[in-house]
């Protein structure tokens, strides 16, 4: 049995457990900031997870999706921050 595949099989449940805990905070969060922070951490978690999973499945072409996911969740942060700070997004 391949050492890489065996190790990643045992590491995936740990990632998934963290993922579930982040989702709980993202659903529960008392304020909007808590929710966005949890989504932030969850999405970076997912991005790391996608790279690991593409090695596990041996499909290299799927790695490109991680770049896109890492780029866009920053945009969500900025939008919510601007809304909380200024109320008018355009200026």
């Amino acid at each position, binding site marked *: 049995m*391949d*050492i*890489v595949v065996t*190790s*990643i099989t045992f*590491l995936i449940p*740990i*990632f998934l*457990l*963290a*993922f579930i*805990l*982040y989702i*709980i*905070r993202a659903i529960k969060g008392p*304020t*909007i*900031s*808590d929710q*966005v*922070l*949890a989504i*932030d*951490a969850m999405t*970076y*978690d997912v*991005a*790391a997870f996608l*790279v*690991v999973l*593409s*090695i596990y499945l*041996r499909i*290299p*072409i799927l*790695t*490109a999706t*991680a*770049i896109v996911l*890492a*780029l866009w*969740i*920053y945009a969500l*942060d*900025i939008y*919510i*921050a*601007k*809304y*909380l*700070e200024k109320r008018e997004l355009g200026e």
Partner: protein
Amino acid sequence: MTEVLIYIGLALIGLGAVSDLIAAIGMNRFKNFYLRLHAATIGTIWGAFVPIIGASLVAIGYEPLGYYRWFVAGAGFVAALLVLILAPAGSHALARATHRARIVRVEPCIADHLDETMCIKGGSE
């Protein structure tokens, strides 16, 4: 040589997974937003940056990927760099906006040097 890369990479992925779990537990256990900021930083740098670097190292040494392992490694390093740049900036923007919009109150509060009016001395504890 390739075995060494694979072992280092797997160790980094394992370290990242464990840090991610710790950060997720902290996310649920900490009391207010400013403390959760700390957990989120652990979760993004140790929980995302380190495993992606580890996965890139594994991909360089992993034969079944064939010629495309350089693609995986390159995309992985770019993604890791993006996480390293973007995660702190996003957290910063969110924290600053939260403080300015006054939607999170910290109780009990010792001192708030940015805005004294937000600090309610001697709260519930």
